[in-house]
């Protein structure tokens, strides 16, 4: 079983309108061994990078006025970019109220980290999304990581193939 994650060959894209926050996330990734970290400061720049470069992991803010990080996530999950539809997506956002977390989850985000965040939480999530990829659900209404995190007894109808 893998005990390490080598970020050397993993290509990251950070989309955050706050330049300092984006730079900090980039510097943390570089310290963790990443070599290729693209930084975009707007939705449009993010789309441009996703259309022209090979990106393995997307880190995005939800607050990207006049557009939204949710739109970006949906575009990836709908296959409207060059990126792999099942790519890991981490939301890093100060819009961390329950409704925003649920919206992000239902748009197909892999992990959510609320700003302000600590380096331990950041590390744990980055390692986790690469080392432990999640199964995906493909339905008419949703394409994204399996939202059932807990294994609980269920006696209702089986709606999955």
């Amino acid at each position, binding site marked *: 079983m893998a005990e390490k994650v080598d970020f050397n060959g993993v290509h990251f894209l950070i989309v955050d309108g706050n330049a*300092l926050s984006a730079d900090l996330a980039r510097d943390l990734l570089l310290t963790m061994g990443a070599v290729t970290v693209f930084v975009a400061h707007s939705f449009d720049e993010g789309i441009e990078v996703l259309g022209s470069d090979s990106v393995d992991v997307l880190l995005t803010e939800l607050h990207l006025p006049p557009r939204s990080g949710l739109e970006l996530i949906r575009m990836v999950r709908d296959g409207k970019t060059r990126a792999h539809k099942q790519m890991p997506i981490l939301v890093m956002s100060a819009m961390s109220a329950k409704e925003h977390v649920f919206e992000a989850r239902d748009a197909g985000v892999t992990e959510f980290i609320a700003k302000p965040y600590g380096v331990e939480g950041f590390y744990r999530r980055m390692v986790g999304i690469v080392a432990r990829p999640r199964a995906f659900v493909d*339905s008419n209404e949703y394409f994204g990581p399996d939202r059932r995190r807990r294994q609980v007894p269920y006696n209702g109808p089986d709606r999955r193939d």
Partner: protein
Amino acid sequence: MTVAKSKLLPPAEDLTQRAANSTTGMDLRLSPGVLRRLEEVVNESREKFVVDLAARLRKLRASTQARTDGQMSDVDLLKLVFEESLQIKGMGGTIGYQVLSLIATTLNDFVTERQTLGRIQFEILQLHIDAMYVVIADRITDNGGILEDQVLSGLRAAVRKFS
């Protein structure tokens, strides 16, 4: 009634196969050495964050003055305060100013979806900005002390009462 079935797709393993291994890279568990290096990265950016936060607070103070002088509408001020308080909330705690993030959170909640400002609401908004100024000026890190706790409780009570 027919129920539309959904498909469960196996995890995409290509990235994991490329990056996860047993010899090179980061341990799955964060080691003390790596934690120290990551904290150093945060420390190195602290001063830039503080300068940026101070500039945002100056902008907020200038804008409240502009509103007082009749040069800025409530809608424009509220839009600006929403934007800046969200950024301050996200930045403060990241560099150790948790109390700053907590005040910014209260302010952000207060202005979210608000369209107008009465006299008391405007004063509450100014009190938040003044409190954040003090935090930055006096470099009050972590959660602050008893005084900061009381200030935060007072701001929250005011927001609850006058929202």
